[in-house]
C-alpha cells in the first residue's frame, strides 16, 4: 500500500518555512521582551503564525477560530489587562539575580524540546508501519473488500461531530465559558459598601 505523501509546491514550501520561523521567533520574543506590551504584540504574531500552520494542515475552520478567538479576543483582553495593571509598562524589574529560575527554565525547555525531537525521530517510521500492520490485521478480521478500500472514506464535518458524538462536552464547555464570564465580572467588580 502506498503512503499518500504530500508534495507541496516550492512556493508553498518556502511559505511554510517562513511561517514556522516567524512563529518560533515571535514566541521567543514573547518571553524575552523587556516591555510587556511588546510581548503582547509578539504573541499576536505568534498566534497568526500558528493559524497559518493550521491552514497548511488543512484545518481551515480551526485557523479561522484561532484568528477570531485568539488574535481578536484574548490578545485584546491581555492588552486591556496590561494597560490596567502597570504604571510603567515594564515587565517588572528583571534585574534581580534569579539564576536558579533561569537555569531551571532553560533546562526544562531544552529537555522538553530534545525529548520531543528524539521521540518523533524514533516514532516516525514505525508509526506508519504499525498503522499499516494494524490495518492489515483489522482487514483480515473484519473482511474488507477491495471495493471498500477504493471507496472514499466517510468523513464527518466538524459541525456534525460537535452536534453528535461530542454534544455533551460541547454543552459542558458552553457552561464553563458562561461561568468563567460571570466569574471574571464578579472578580473584577468594585466592592460596593452595603
Amino acid at each position, binding site marked *: 500500500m502506498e503512503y499518500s505523501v504530500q508534495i507541496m509546491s516550492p512556493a508553498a514550501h518556502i511559505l511554510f518555512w517562513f511561517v514556522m520561523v516567524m512563529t518560533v521567533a515571535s514566541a521567543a520574543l514573547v*518571553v524575552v521582551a523587556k516591555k510587556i506590551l511588546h510581548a503582547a504584540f509578539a504573541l499576536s504574531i505568534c498566534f497568526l503564525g500558528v493559524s497559518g500552520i493550521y491552514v497548511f494542515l488543512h484545518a481551515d475552520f480551526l485557523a479561522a477560530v484561532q484568528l477570531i478567538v485568539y488574535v481578536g479576543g484574548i490578545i485584546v483582553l491581555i492588552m486591556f489587562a496590561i494597560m490596567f495593571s502597570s504604571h510603567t509598562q515594564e515587565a517588572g524589574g528583571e534585574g534581580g539575580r534569579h539564576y536558579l529560575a533561569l537555569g531551571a527554565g532553560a533546562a526544562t525547555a531544552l529537555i522538553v524540546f530534545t525529548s520531543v525531537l528524539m521521540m518523533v525521530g524514533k516514532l516516525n517510521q514505525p508509526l506508519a508501519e504499525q498503522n499499516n500492520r494494524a490495518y492489515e490485521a483489522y482487514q483480515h478480521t473484519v473482511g474488507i473488500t477491495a471495493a471498500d478500500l477504493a471507496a472514499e472514506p466517510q468523513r464527518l464535518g466538524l459541525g456534525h461531530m460537535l452536534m453528535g458524538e*461530542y454534544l455533551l462536552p460541547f454543552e459542558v464547555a458552553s457552561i464553563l465559558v458562561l461561568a468563567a464570564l460571570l466569574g471574571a465580572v464578579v472578580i473584577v467588580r468594585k466592592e460596593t459598601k452595603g
Partner: protein
Amino acid sequence: MVPLAEAGVFGWLLGLFSFKLVSCLALAGAIFAIGAWGVLARRNVLVMLISVELMLNAVMLTFVSFSRALVNMGPQLSNPYAAEGGQIFALFIIAIAAAEAAVGLAIVISYFRNRQTVDTREIRAMKN
C-alpha cells in the same frame, strides 16, 4: 529513514524535517519549551499567563498535526472520526483557554488594584 549513526546529526535532522508532521511537532515542541521557560523564569504574572497561552497553543498544534497525519499516513481506517478528531480537541482547548485567560486576567487586575504590583516576588499575601 536513515538511523542517526549512519547519517550524522545534520543529515538525520534534514531527513527528519522533510516530513511535515515532524516539522509541525518540532514547532509545537519549541513553542511549548519557550512557554515553559517563560512560566518558570519570568517574574511578571502577566507574562506567565501569556506563556501559558503559548503552551496551550503548542498542545493544540500537536493534536491537529497528529489528526492530519492519521489522514495522510497509510491506508485510511474507515473511521469517520479519524480525520477531524484532533481538531475537535483543539476547539475545546480554545474554549477552555479563553475561560482561563478571562478569569486569570481578572484575578491579576483585581490583585493589582489592591496591591499595586504584578511581580511574583512581591506577591506573598498567602505565604506562611
